[in-house]
């Protein structure tokens, strides 16, 4: 390579940049920082209540559905620390006379692709599952994501909790058996395990708070 370039000669000295007042130089950036900070704080104050309500409603709107859609109900939000140290939040649904209608618990487990999040509805004594809903999942479209379909999820309705649920690949013979989604055994097993864990968590809560 014969480079005959007279533009950058190695020995040539270029002056260092002059020492300027940096903050004065960047006044526009600083001014914008203040302006945007103020503007965003306004947006936050105005919109964050709506956003918070959206997040809560997402779960709360599903809660009554999972305990058999009663016409009148109250929802109590409770929390409990499990033996494994997790802090759980769950919902106790009661009618107007404070008579218990059932429980709704959040459950989650790592599925095939990412974490699967569920809501599990149980009856008052935690002896029967009333229904489940998949809140969030990123399983493979066309296979794993069928766990959200009514076909799979309706199998859980009415299942007893005396024995842990198990997944089978053919038509289920017993109450506690759930038929897997074809081609998505791992996703199905994850859902069943998460439900089982939720049942255990609720039972533990009921034992430690006998009232």
């Amino acid at each position, binding site marked *: *390579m*014969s*480079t*005959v*370039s*007279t*533009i*950058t000669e190695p020995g*040539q*000295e*270029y002056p*260092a*940049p002059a*020492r*300027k007042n*940096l*903050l004065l*130089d*960047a006044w526009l*950036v*600083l001014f914008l*920082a*203040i302006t*945007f*900070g*103020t503007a*965003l*704080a*306004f947006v*936050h*104050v105005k919109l964050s209540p709506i956003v918070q309500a959206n997040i809560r409603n997402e779960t709360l709107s599903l809660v009554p559905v999972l305990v058999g859609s009663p016409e009148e109900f109250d929802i109590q939000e409770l929390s409990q620390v499990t033996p494994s140290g997790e802090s759980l939040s769950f919902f106790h649904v009661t009618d107007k006379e404070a008579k218990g209608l059932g429980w709704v618990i959040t459950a989650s487990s790592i599925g095939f692709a990412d974490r699967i999040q569920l809501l599990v509805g149980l009856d008052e004594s935690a002896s029967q599952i009333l229904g489940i809903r998949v809140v969030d999942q990123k399983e493979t479209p066309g296979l794993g994501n069928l766990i959200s379909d009514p076909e799979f999820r309706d199998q859980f309705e009415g299942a007893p909790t005396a024995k842990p649920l198990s997944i089978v690949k053919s038509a289920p013979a017993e109450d506690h058996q759930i038929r897997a989604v074809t081609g998505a055994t791992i996703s199905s097993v994850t859902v069943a395990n998460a439900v089982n864990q939720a049942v255990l968590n609720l039972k533990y809560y009921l034992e430690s708070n006998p009232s």
Partner: protein
Amino acid sequence: MDNTLITILLAAGILLVIAVLMALILGWANIAFHVPTDPKITAVTEILPGANCGGCGFVGCAEYAEAVVKGKAPATLCGPGGQDTANKIAETLGLSLGETWPFKAVVHCAATREQRLKQTPYYGEQTCAAANLVPGIQGCVYGCLGYGDCQDVCEYGAIDMVDGLAVIDVDKCTGCRACEKACPRGIITMIPFKTEEVLVVTCSNKDKGVLVKDVCTVGCIGCSACTKPSDGLIEMINDLPVVNYDKDSSGIDLHKSVEKCPRESLVFIGLHKDKKKPKGEPERIEANFATTIDQTEWRG
């Protein structure tokens, strides 16, 4: 105090603190870590958008700026900046760079299909890139294959295939280098057209004369007869004459070298601005030789 007011104060305050911190650190670093750089590169970098999108094929605006200043890239590659940026760069560098020469492509082979010997019939894919992989397709392993890969990539219609040989019309050639990259045998290079006519070696065969005569009727036999009248402008490297385009050729009559050549391996290629003018004494373009921008290893 009111909660809203405090939120605003906190938000604005924290952003301000971050901004001030960053400005101070960067300002200090700018002076403490100062490395002397060519002000021209800095100037061009400042003209460029600084989006560092990579669209020009260089990694970031600064590298592109360096390439432009060093003459390794045209000033027109910046997509986001568009024509305005290109004009500004040209303006900035035009003032400081002085004159440059147009670089044009030349083919270092002069053998038409009939003049290349020992050919075998080839029915494969009709591209040079494919044909080049077939051993024994023709006797000369250095010369033009004639399937026109260079013609295909030329967007300016400057290349014609004449009797199985690529011929470049220097008037149409813009020096974009597409053909240089396309040729699998690397026999197209860019040379600076400092004069109206430029001496070009039209053979790339590095073998000894006996072997060359076996495979080609016009190729260079490495007799070095051309070097003597050239006053050191032509040197023999690997049995091929190499023209040093960096040297000032004024005062050297290169036509004598062409006359001495027993084959047809040295020719003048000219910018045919005035086609009626008889070939002979080429007119010189006056230019400042000190600012030559040299880009590749010239093979002459």
